[in-house]
Protein backbone atom coordinates (compact mmCIF):
# COMPACT_ATOMS: atom_id res chain seq x y z
CA UNK A 1 0.00 0.00 0.00
CA UNK A 2 2.59 2.51 1.08
CA UNK A 3 4.81 1.66 -1.89
CA UNK A 4 2.02 2.34 -4.44
CA UNK A 5 1.19 5.66 -2.85
CA UNK A 6 4.79 6.75 -3.10
CA UNK A 7 4.93 5.83 -6.79
CA UNK A 8 1.74 7.75 -7.57
CA UNK A 9 3.13 10.78 -5.77
CA UNK A 10 6.30 10.62 -7.84
CA UNK A 11 4.32 10.40 -11.06
CA UNK A 12 2.36 13.51 -9.98
CA UNK A 13 5.55 15.45 -9.51
CA UNK A 14 7.23 14.30 -12.70
CA UNK A 15 5.06 15.46 -15.67
CA UNK A 16 1.67 16.68 -17.00
CA UNK A 17 -1.25 15.76 -14.70
CA UNK A 18 -3.29 12.72 -15.58
CA UNK A 19 -6.20 12.99 -13.15
CA UNK A 20 -8.47 16.08 -13.16
CA UNK A 21 -6.84 19.05 -14.85
CA UNK A 22 -7.51 20.26 -18.37
CA UNK A 23 -5.03 21.97 -20.57
CA UNK A 24 -5.15 25.38 -22.14
CA UNK A 25 -5.56 23.61 -25.43
CA UNK A 26 -8.66 21.91 -24.08
CA UNK A 27 -10.27 25.11 -22.80
CA UNK A 28 -9.51 26.98 -26.01
CA UNK A 29 -11.01 24.19 -28.04
CA UNK A 30 -14.11 24.02 -25.85
CA UNK A 31 -14.68 27.76 -26.06
CA UNK A 32 -14.39 27.54 -29.83
CA UNK A 33 -17.06 24.86 -29.77
CA UNK A 34 -19.26 27.26 -27.87
CA UNK A 35 -18.59 29.89 -30.53
CA UNK A 36 -19.68 27.46 -33.24
CA UNK A 37 -22.92 26.82 -31.44
CA UNK A 38 -23.50 30.52 -30.75
CA UNK A 39 -22.86 31.27 -34.42
CA UNK A 40 -25.46 28.68 -35.36
CA UNK A 41 -27.71 30.39 -32.82
CA UNK A 42 -27.24 33.67 -34.66
CA UNK A 43 -28.14 31.99 -37.95
CA UNK A 44 -31.34 30.63 -36.40
CA UNK A 45 -32.04 33.97 -34.80
CA UNK A 46 -32.36 35.70 -38.17
CA UNK A 47 -33.86 32.73 -40.02
CA UNK A 48 -37.52 32.22 -40.92
CA UNK A 49 -37.11 28.48 -40.37
CA UNK A 50 -37.89 28.60 -36.62
CA UNK A 51 -41.54 29.61 -37.10
CA UNK A 52 -44.09 29.07 -39.83
CA UNK A 53 -44.93 32.61 -40.88
CA UNK A 54 -41.57 33.98 -41.93
CA UNK A 55 -41.07 36.08 -38.83
CA UNK A 56 -37.61 35.82 -37.28
CA UNK A 57 -36.47 36.44 -33.69
CA UNK A 58 -34.25 39.28 -34.90
CA UNK A 59 -37.24 41.26 -36.12
CA UNK A 60 -38.16 42.20 -32.54
CA UNK A 61 -34.81 41.36 -30.93
CA UNK A 62 -32.00 42.73 -33.08
CA UNK A 63 -28.70 41.49 -31.63
CA UNK A 64 -30.87 39.63 -29.11
CA UNK A 65 -31.61 42.95 -27.40
CA UNK A 66 -34.44 43.06 -24.91
CA UNK A 67 -34.31 39.35 -24.15
CA UNK A 68 -32.67 39.91 -20.74
CA UNK A 69 -31.18 36.43 -20.36
CA UNK A 70 -29.45 37.60 -17.17
CA UNK A 71 -32.77 37.92 -15.36
CA UNK A 72 -33.91 34.32 -15.67
CA UNK A 73 -35.39 32.40 -13.95
CA UNK A 74 -38.08 34.96 -13.26
CA UNK A 75 -41.83 35.32 -13.02
CA UNK A 76 -43.12 35.34 -16.54
CA UNK A 77 -46.65 36.71 -16.85
CA UNK A 78 -47.25 34.93 -20.12
CA UNK A 79 -46.56 31.59 -18.45
CA UNK A 80 -48.15 32.33 -15.06
CA UNK A 81 -45.12 31.25 -13.04
CA UNK A 82 -41.41 31.60 -12.50
CA UNK A 83 -39.82 30.19 -15.65
CA UNK A 84 -36.52 29.81 -17.46
CA UNK A 85 -35.24 31.47 -20.62
CA UNK A 86 -35.80 28.46 -22.85
CA UNK A 87 -39.45 28.34 -21.84
CA UNK A 88 -39.91 31.94 -22.86
CA UNK A 89 -38.10 31.32 -26.14
CA UNK A 90 -40.63 28.58 -26.78
CA UNK A 91 -43.43 31.00 -25.98
CA UNK A 92 -42.09 33.35 -28.65
CA UNK A 93 -41.75 30.50 -31.12
CA UNK A 94 -45.36 29.48 -30.54
CA UNK A 95 -46.85 32.95 -30.51
CA UNK A 96 -45.35 35.64 -32.76
CA UNK A 97 -43.58 33.04 -34.88
CA UNK A 98 -46.57 30.65 -34.96
CA UNK A 99 -44.26 27.64 -34.72
CA UNK A 100 -43.84 24.61 -32.46
CA UNK A 101 -41.99 24.21 -29.16
CA UNK A 102 -38.43 22.99 -29.12
CA UNK A 103 -37.23 20.64 -26.39
CA UNK A 104 -34.93 22.25 -23.83
CA UNK A 105 -32.05 20.12 -25.09
CA UNK A 106 -32.82 20.54 -28.77
CA UNK A 107 -29.56 21.68 -30.42
CA UNK A 108 -31.44 24.63 -31.93
CA UNK A 109 -32.70 25.76 -28.52
CA UNK A 110 -29.23 25.44 -27.06
CA UNK A 111 -27.79 27.39 -29.97
CA UNK A 112 -30.26 30.25 -29.66
CA UNK A 113 -29.69 30.52 -25.94
CA UNK A 114 -25.95 30.50 -26.54
CA UNK A 115 -26.33 33.38 -28.99
CA UNK A 116 -28.62 35.42 -26.73
CA UNK A 117 -26.30 35.01 -23.78
CA UNK A 118 -23.27 35.84 -25.86
CA UNK A 119 -24.78 39.13 -27.04
CA UNK A 120 -25.43 39.96 -23.40
CA UNK A 121 -22.04 39.08 -21.98
CA UNK A 122 -20.68 41.32 -19.27
CA UNK A 123 -24.08 42.20 -17.90
CA UNK A 124 -24.52 41.26 -14.25
CA UNK A 125 -26.74 38.36 -13.29
CA UNK A 126 -29.99 39.58 -11.82
CA UNK A 127 -32.34 36.60 -11.60
CA UNK A 128 -35.96 37.42 -10.90
CA UNK A 129 -35.59 41.04 -12.00
CA UNK A 130 -38.73 42.14 -13.71
Amino acid sequence: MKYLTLCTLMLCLSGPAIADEFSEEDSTRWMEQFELVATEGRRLWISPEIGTNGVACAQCHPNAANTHPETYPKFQKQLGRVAQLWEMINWCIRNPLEGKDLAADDPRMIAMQAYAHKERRGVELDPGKH
Partner: protein
Amino acid sequence: MNKSLIAMSIAVGNLILATPILAEGPLGLPGLPVPTDNPQTPEKIALGSRLFNDVRFSATGDVSCATCHVAEKAFTDSPLSVSEGIRKLTGTRNAPTVVNAAFNKTQFWDGRSPDLEDQALHPFVNPVEMALPNHDALLAIVRGDPAYVQSFSGVFGVSAAAITMKEVTRAIAAFERTQISGDSPFDRWYFAGEQDAISAQAKRGFTTFLGNGRCVSCHAIEQDFAVFTDHLFHNIGIGINNIQDKVPELARAFQIAKNAGLDVDVAVLSDADTSHLGRFAVDDQFSSMGSFKTSTLRNIDVTAPYMHDGSLKTLREVVEHYNNGGVTKPEDPVNPFLSGGIRPLNLTEQEIDDLVAFMEALTSPQFQSLKAQSVAAAGVSGDTQ
Protein backbone atom coordinates in the same frame (compact mmCIF):
# COMPACT_ATOMS: atom_id res chain seq x y z
CA MET B 1 -30.57 13.94 16.12
CA ASN B 2 -29.02 14.36 19.52
CA LYS B 3 -30.92 15.33 22.63
CA SER B 4 -30.04 18.99 22.74
CA LEU B 5 -31.10 19.48 19.12
CA ILE B 6 -34.47 17.91 19.85
CA ALA B 7 -34.85 20.13 22.86
CA MET B 8 -34.07 23.17 20.72
CA SER B 9 -36.62 22.21 18.08
CA ILE B 10 -39.34 21.90 20.68
CA ALA B 11 -38.44 25.25 22.13
CA VAL B 12 -38.54 26.89 18.71
CA GLY B 13 -41.77 25.11 17.90
CA ASN B 14 -43.34 26.49 21.04
CA LEU B 15 -42.17 29.94 20.10
CA ILE B 16 -43.94 29.63 16.76
CA LEU B 17 -47.11 28.36 18.37
CA ALA B 18 -47.02 31.14 20.88
CA THR B 19 -47.30 33.73 18.08
CA PRO B 20 -50.98 34.43 17.29
CA ILE B 21 -51.75 32.78 14.00
CA LEU B 22 -53.87 34.89 11.64
CA ALA B 23 -56.73 32.96 10.10
CA GLU B 24 -55.70 31.74 6.66
CA GLY B 25 -57.72 33.00 3.73
CA PRO B 26 -59.26 30.58 1.24
CA LEU B 27 -56.69 28.57 -0.70
CA GLY B 28 -55.59 30.20 -3.93
CA LEU B 29 -56.52 33.76 -3.10
CA PRO B 30 -54.16 36.65 -2.35
CA GLY B 31 -54.58 38.85 0.72
CA LEU B 32 -57.92 40.62 0.73
CA PRO B 33 -57.55 44.33 -0.06
CA VAL B 34 -59.42 46.40 2.54
CA PRO B 35 -59.34 50.21 2.38
CA THR B 36 -57.76 51.87 5.39
CA ASP B 37 -60.81 54.07 5.79
CA ASN B 38 -63.30 51.20 5.78
CA PRO B 39 -62.09 48.38 8.03
CA GLN B 40 -64.15 45.20 8.41
CA THR B 41 -66.20 44.72 11.56
CA PRO B 42 -68.94 42.13 12.17
CA GLU B 43 -71.53 44.83 12.89
CA LYS B 44 -70.69 46.75 9.71
CA ILE B 45 -70.88 43.58 7.67
CA ALA B 46 -74.29 42.72 9.13
CA LEU B 47 -75.54 46.23 8.40
CA GLY B 48 -74.20 45.96 4.85
CA SER B 49 -76.01 42.70 4.35
CA ARG B 50 -79.29 44.23 5.43
CA LEU B 51 -78.83 47.19 3.07
CA PHE B 52 -77.88 44.82 0.25
CA ASN B 53 -81.16 42.97 0.65
CA ASP B 54 -83.46 45.90 1.28
CA VAL B 55 -86.08 46.13 -1.48
CA ARG B 56 -87.44 49.43 -0.16
CA PHE B 57 -84.55 51.21 -1.88
CA SER B 58 -86.29 51.15 -5.26
CA ALA B 59 -88.99 53.14 -7.01
CA THR B 60 -91.42 50.23 -6.89
CA GLY B 61 -90.33 48.89 -3.52
CA ASP B 62 -89.40 45.44 -4.82
CA VAL B 63 -85.82 45.60 -6.10
CA SER B 64 -82.64 45.36 -4.05
CA CYS B 65 -79.03 44.57 -4.85
CA ALA B 66 -79.93 40.96 -4.15
CA THR B 67 -82.48 40.98 -6.96
CA CYS B 68 -79.70 40.73 -9.53
CA HIS B 69 -77.00 39.45 -7.20
CA VAL B 70 -78.76 36.46 -5.71
CA ALA B 71 -76.76 34.78 -2.95
CA GLU B 72 -78.09 31.36 -3.91
CA LYS B 73 -76.92 31.90 -7.48
CA ALA B 74 -73.36 32.84 -6.59
CA PHE B 75 -74.56 36.46 -6.48
CA THR B 76 -75.69 36.61 -10.10
CA ASP B 77 -79.09 36.32 -11.72
CA SER B 78 -78.14 33.38 -13.87
CA PRO B 79 -79.56 32.39 -16.36
CA LEU B 80 -80.57 35.92 -17.38
CA SER B 81 -78.43 37.40 -20.17
CA VAL B 82 -79.06 40.95 -19.04
CA SER B 83 -80.48 41.98 -15.71
CA GLU B 84 -84.02 43.12 -14.94
CA GLY B 85 -84.71 46.04 -12.65
CA ILE B 86 -87.98 47.58 -11.56
CA ARG B 87 -91.00 46.47 -13.57
CA LYS B 88 -88.72 43.93 -15.26
CA LEU B 89 -87.05 46.73 -17.21
CA THR B 90 -84.00 45.28 -18.91
CA GLY B 91 -80.62 46.89 -19.04
CA THR B 92 -77.89 45.94 -21.46
CA ARG B 93 -75.41 44.11 -19.30
CA ASN B 94 -75.01 40.82 -17.52
CA ALA B 95 -74.83 41.05 -13.71
CA PRO B 96 -71.26 40.25 -12.64
CA THR B 97 -70.86 38.10 -9.56
CA VAL B 98 -70.11 39.81 -6.27
CA VAL B 99 -68.05 36.78 -5.26
CA ASN B 100 -64.39 37.81 -5.30
CA ALA B 101 -65.29 41.26 -6.68
CA ALA B 102 -63.33 42.54 -3.69
CA PHE B 103 -60.16 41.62 -5.58
CA ASN B 104 -61.06 43.69 -8.66
CA LYS B 105 -59.16 46.91 -9.14
CA THR B 106 -62.19 48.53 -10.75
CA GLN B 107 -65.88 47.67 -10.70
CA PHE B 108 -68.43 47.25 -13.50
CA TRP B 109 -67.71 45.70 -16.88
CA ASP B 110 -66.19 48.98 -18.05
CA GLY B 111 -64.41 49.82 -14.80
CA ARG B 112 -66.30 53.07 -14.33
CA SER B 113 -66.16 52.67 -10.53
CA PRO B 114 -62.84 52.55 -8.72
CA ASP B 115 -64.08 50.44 -5.84
CA LEU B 116 -67.00 48.63 -4.23
CA GLU B 117 -67.98 51.72 -2.27
CA ASP B 118 -68.44 53.82 -5.38
CA GLN B 119 -70.08 51.03 -7.35
CA ALA B 120 -72.87 50.75 -4.79
CA LEU B 121 -73.99 54.32 -5.47
CA HIS B 122 -75.08 53.83 -9.03
CA PRO B 123 -77.74 51.11 -9.35
CA PHE B 124 -79.96 52.87 -6.82
CA VAL B 125 -80.46 55.80 -9.17
CA ASN B 126 -80.29 54.08 -12.53
CA PRO B 127 -83.65 54.19 -14.34
CA VAL B 128 -83.58 50.52 -15.35
CA GLU B 129 -82.32 49.21 -12.00
CA MET B 130 -83.80 50.60 -8.75
CA ALA B 131 -84.78 53.90 -10.38
CA LEU B 132 -84.85 56.07 -7.27
CA PRO B 133 -85.03 59.76 -8.22
CA ASN B 134 -81.92 60.44 -6.14
CA HIS B 135 -80.06 59.14 -3.10
CA ASP B 136 -82.08 61.27 -0.73
CA ALA B 137 -85.00 58.91 -1.22
CA LEU B 138 -82.85 56.08 0.11
CA LEU B 139 -81.46 58.11 2.98
CA ALA B 140 -84.96 59.13 4.02
CA ILE B 141 -85.84 55.46 4.48
CA VAL B 142 -82.66 54.72 6.40
CA ARG B 143 -82.96 57.72 8.67
CA GLY B 144 -86.58 56.89 9.40
CA ASP B 145 -85.89 53.26 10.33
CA PRO B 146 -85.00 52.88 14.04
CA ALA B 147 -83.11 49.63 13.51
CA TYR B 148 -80.94 51.22 10.84
CA VAL B 149 -80.43 54.33 12.95
CA GLN B 150 -79.20 52.23 15.82
CA SER B 151 -76.86 50.22 13.59
CA PHE B 152 -75.39 53.25 11.87
CA SER B 153 -74.85 54.89 15.21
CA GLY B 154 -73.05 51.84 16.55
CA VAL B 155 -70.95 51.22 13.44
CA PHE B 156 -70.12 54.75 12.28
CA GLY B 157 -70.93 56.88 15.32
CA VAL B 158 -73.34 59.03 13.31
CA SER B 159 -76.75 60.28 14.32
CA ALA B 160 -79.75 59.71 12.04
CA ALA B 161 -79.52 63.09 10.33
CA ALA B 162 -75.81 62.60 9.69
CA ILE B 163 -76.16 59.30 7.85
CA THR B 164 -74.96 59.81 4.28
CA MET B 165 -74.34 57.58 1.25
CA LYS B 166 -70.74 57.37 2.39
CA GLU B 167 -71.74 55.26 5.40
CA VAL B 168 -74.33 53.33 3.41
CA THR B 169 -71.89 52.34 0.68
CA ARG B 170 -69.12 51.55 3.13
CA ALA B 171 -71.38 49.10 4.91
CA ILE B 172 -72.46 47.49 1.66
CA ALA B 173 -68.85 47.21 0.52
CA ALA B 174 -67.83 45.64 3.82
CA PHE B 175 -70.49 42.98 3.34
CA GLU B 176 -69.37 42.37 -0.23
CA ARG B 177 -65.79 41.91 0.94
CA THR B 178 -66.91 38.85 2.86
CA GLN B 179 -68.10 37.19 -0.34
CA ILE B 180 -64.85 35.61 -1.34
CA SER B 181 -64.19 32.04 -2.35
CA GLY B 182 -61.18 29.94 -3.19
CA ASP B 183 -60.35 26.37 -2.27
CA SER B 184 -61.65 25.00 -5.56
CA PRO B 185 -60.53 21.58 -6.80
CA PHE B 186 -58.00 23.43 -9.00
CA ASP B 187 -56.59 25.27 -5.96
CA ARG B 188 -56.24 22.04 -4.03
CA TRP B 189 -54.41 20.45 -6.93
CA TYR B 190 -52.22 23.35 -8.02
CA PHE B 191 -51.45 25.09 -4.74
CA ALA B 192 -51.89 22.29 -2.21
CA GLY B 193 -50.50 19.43 -4.27
CA GLU B 194 -53.48 17.07 -4.02
CA GLN B 195 -52.85 14.94 -7.08
CA ASP B 196 -56.41 13.59 -7.36
CA ALA B 197 -58.27 16.84 -6.75
CA ILE B 198 -59.02 17.29 -10.45
CA SER B 199 -59.37 14.93 -13.40
CA ALA B 200 -56.66 14.17 -15.93
CA GLN B 201 -58.77 16.06 -18.46
CA ALA B 202 -58.83 19.19 -16.30
CA LYS B 203 -55.07 18.94 -15.90
CA ARG B 204 -54.71 18.78 -19.68
CA GLY B 205 -57.06 21.75 -19.87
CA PHE B 206 -54.77 23.69 -17.57
CA THR B 207 -51.82 22.94 -19.83
CA THR B 208 -53.83 24.30 -22.75
CA PHE B 209 -54.83 27.28 -20.59
CA LEU B 210 -51.15 28.12 -20.19
CA GLY B 211 -50.14 27.12 -23.70
CA ASN B 212 -52.10 26.95 -26.92
CA GLY B 213 -55.17 28.53 -25.37
CA ARG B 214 -53.17 31.65 -24.49
CA CYS B 215 -55.59 32.29 -21.64
CA VAL B 216 -53.17 32.94 -18.80
CA SER B 217 -51.91 36.31 -19.97
CA CYS B 218 -55.28 37.97 -19.32
CA HIS B 219 -56.83 35.44 -16.92
CA ALA B 220 -53.74 35.73 -14.80
CA ILE B 221 -52.42 33.27 -12.32
CA GLU B 222 -49.34 33.76 -10.24
CA GLN B 223 -46.88 31.62 -8.38
CA ASP B 224 -48.96 31.24 -5.23
CA PHE B 225 -52.42 32.60 -5.96
CA ALA B 226 -54.83 33.04 -8.84
CA VAL B 227 -57.44 35.74 -9.33
CA PHE B 228 -57.71 34.89 -13.04
CA THR B 229 -57.84 38.51 -14.15
CA ASP B 230 -55.24 41.06 -15.20
CA HIS B 231 -57.67 43.84 -14.23
CA LEU B 232 -57.31 45.31 -17.70
CA PHE B 233 -59.80 45.96 -20.49
CA HIS B 234 -59.78 44.08 -23.77
CA ASN B 235 -61.79 44.05 -26.96
CA ILE B 236 -62.39 40.39 -27.67
CA GLY B 237 -65.03 40.97 -30.31
CA ILE B 238 -68.18 40.64 -28.20
CA GLY B 239 -70.92 43.13 -28.92
CA ILE B 240 -68.78 45.42 -31.02
CA ASN B 241 -68.73 42.91 -33.84
CA ASN B 242 -72.43 43.56 -34.39
CA ILE B 243 -72.05 47.34 -34.64
CA GLN B 244 -68.80 47.60 -36.59
CA ASP B 245 -70.21 49.86 -39.29
CA LYS B 246 -71.90 52.11 -36.78
CA VAL B 247 -68.87 52.67 -34.57
CA PRO B 248 -67.58 55.95 -36.03
CA GLU B 249 -71.01 57.58 -35.86
CA LEU B 250 -71.84 56.11 -32.48
CA ALA B 251 -68.50 57.10 -30.98
CA ARG B 252 -68.79 60.64 -32.27
CA ALA B 253 -72.37 61.06 -31.04
CA PHE B 254 -71.47 59.63 -27.68
CA GLN B 255 -68.49 61.96 -27.22
CA ILE B 256 -70.58 64.98 -28.07
CA ALA B 257 -73.32 63.92 -25.68
CA LYS B 258 -70.81 63.16 -22.96
CA ASN B 259 -69.29 66.57 -23.34
CA ALA B 260 -72.73 68.05 -22.89
CA GLY B 261 -73.13 66.26 -19.56
CA LEU B 262 -74.48 62.82 -20.45
CA ASP B 263 -74.53 60.38 -17.49
CA VAL B 264 -72.38 57.46 -18.56
CA ASP B 265 -73.97 55.04 -16.10
CA VAL B 266 -77.41 55.75 -17.49
CA ALA B 267 -76.30 55.77 -21.12
CA VAL B 268 -74.50 52.45 -21.16
CA LEU B 269 -77.36 50.59 -19.53
CA SER B 270 -80.11 52.12 -21.61
CA ASP B 271 -78.88 51.40 -25.13
CA ALA B 272 -77.28 48.14 -26.25
CA ASP B 273 -75.20 49.75 -28.99
CA THR B 274 -73.80 52.33 -26.57
CA SER B 275 -73.11 49.54 -24.12
CA HIS B 276 -70.94 47.80 -26.70
CA LEU B 277 -68.58 50.81 -26.83
CA GLY B 278 -67.27 49.45 -23.54
CA ARG B 279 -64.40 51.17 -21.80
CA PHE B 280 -64.25 53.86 -24.51
CA ALA B 281 -67.40 55.34 -22.98
CA VAL B 282 -65.50 55.77 -19.73
CA ASP B 283 -61.98 56.85 -20.73
CA ASP B 284 -62.57 58.35 -24.21
CA GLN B 285 -59.57 56.56 -25.65
CA PHE B 286 -59.76 54.99 -29.11
CA SER B 287 -57.63 52.16 -27.82
CA SER B 288 -60.44 51.24 -25.43
CA MET B 289 -63.06 50.88 -28.15
CA GLY B 290 -65.27 47.90 -27.41
CA SER B 291 -63.12 46.81 -24.48
CA PHE B 292 -64.37 45.19 -21.33
CA LYS B 293 -62.76 44.10 -18.10
CA THR B 294 -61.27 40.64 -17.90
CA SER B 295 -63.55 38.82 -15.53
CA THR B 296 -62.44 36.25 -13.00
CA LEU B 297 -62.88 32.60 -13.89
CA ARG B 298 -63.56 31.52 -10.34
CA ASN B 299 -66.98 29.87 -10.16
CA ILE B 300 -67.41 30.57 -13.86
CA ASP B 301 -69.20 27.29 -14.36
CA VAL B 302 -72.14 28.45 -12.23
CA THR B 303 -72.37 32.05 -13.42
CA ALA B 304 -73.63 31.56 -16.98
CA PRO B 305 -74.37 33.21 -19.36
CA TYR B 306 -71.14 34.95 -20.30
CA MET B 307 -69.72 38.26 -21.49
CA HIS B 308 -70.94 41.79 -20.84
CA ASP B 309 -74.14 41.18 -22.76
CA GLY B 310 -74.67 37.61 -21.67
CA SER B 311 -74.54 36.59 -25.32
CA LEU B 312 -72.56 33.38 -24.86
CA LYS B 313 -74.53 30.72 -23.03
CA THR B 314 -72.00 27.99 -22.35
CA LEU B 315 -68.33 27.73 -21.59
CA ARG B 316 -67.82 25.79 -24.77
CA GLU B 317 -69.28 28.67 -26.80
CA VAL B 318 -66.87 30.99 -25.03
CA VAL B 319 -63.84 28.88 -25.90
CA GLU B 320 -65.04 28.60 -29.48
CA HIS B 321 -65.33 32.37 -29.72
CA TYR B 322 -61.71 32.71 -28.65
CA ASN B 323 -60.67 29.84 -30.88
CA ASN B 324 -62.19 31.65 -33.86
CA GLY B 325 -59.98 34.63 -33.07
CA GLY B 326 -62.59 36.95 -31.61
CA VAL B 327 -65.71 36.16 -33.61
CA THR B 328 -68.62 34.01 -32.53
CA LYS B 329 -69.22 32.55 -35.99
CA PRO B 330 -65.97 31.74 -37.81
CA GLU B 331 -67.06 33.48 -41.00
CA ASP B 332 -67.88 36.79 -39.25
CA PRO B 333 -65.56 39.74 -39.90
CA VAL B 334 -63.13 40.53 -37.11
CA ASN B 335 -63.59 44.06 -35.76
CA PRO B 336 -60.69 46.45 -36.39
CA PHE B 337 -60.34 47.37 -32.72
CA LEU B 338 -59.70 43.80 -31.62
CA SER B 339 -57.25 43.41 -28.77
CA GLY B 340 -53.79 42.37 -29.83
CA GLY B 341 -53.99 39.39 -27.54
CA ILE B 342 -56.77 37.77 -29.52
CA ARG B 343 -55.95 35.58 -32.49
CA PRO B 344 -57.21 32.31 -33.99
CA LEU B 345 -56.02 29.48 -31.76
CA ASN B 346 -56.45 26.37 -33.93
CA LEU B 347 -57.37 24.29 -30.91
CA THR B 348 -58.50 20.72 -31.40
CA GLU B 349 -61.96 19.62 -30.23
CA GLN B 350 -60.21 17.74 -27.45
CA GLU B 351 -58.33 20.85 -26.32
CA ILE B 352 -61.58 22.81 -26.25
CA ASP B 353 -63.28 20.16 -24.13
CA ASP B 354 -60.25 20.03 -21.86
CA LEU B 355 -60.34 23.79 -21.33
CA VAL B 356 -63.99 23.58 -20.36
CA ALA B 357 -63.19 20.77 -17.91
CA PHE B 358 -60.45 22.92 -16.40
CA MET B 359 -62.83 25.85 -15.94
CA GLU B 360 -65.34 23.54 -14.30
CA ALA B 361 -62.67 22.76 -11.71
CA LEU B 362 -62.64 26.39 -10.56
CA THR B 363 -65.90 26.19 -8.62
CA SER B 364 -65.50 26.67 -4.87
CA PRO B 365 -67.10 24.08 -2.56
CA GLN B 366 -69.95 26.33 -1.46
CA PHE B 367 -71.18 26.69 -5.03
CA GLN B 368 -70.72 23.13 -6.28
CA SER B 369 -74.44 22.36 -5.90
CA LEU B 370 -75.41 25.23 -8.18
CA LYS B 371 -73.99 23.59 -11.24
CA ALA B 372 -76.90 21.26 -11.84
CA GLN B 373 -79.48 23.99 -11.24
CA SER B 374 -77.72 26.45 -13.53
CA VAL B 375 -77.49 24.02 -16.43
CA ALA B 376 -81.13 23.03 -16.16
CA ALA B 377 -82.32 26.62 -16.00
CA ALA B 378 -80.21 27.69 -18.98
CA GLY B 379 -81.81 25.00 -21.05
CA VAL B 380 -85.33 26.09 -20.15
CA SER B 381 -85.30 29.90 -20.03
CA GLY B 382 -85.81 32.16 -22.97
CA ASP B 383 -83.01 34.65 -23.06
CA THR B 384 -83.63 38.32 -22.72
CA GLN B 385 -81.45 40.50 -24.90
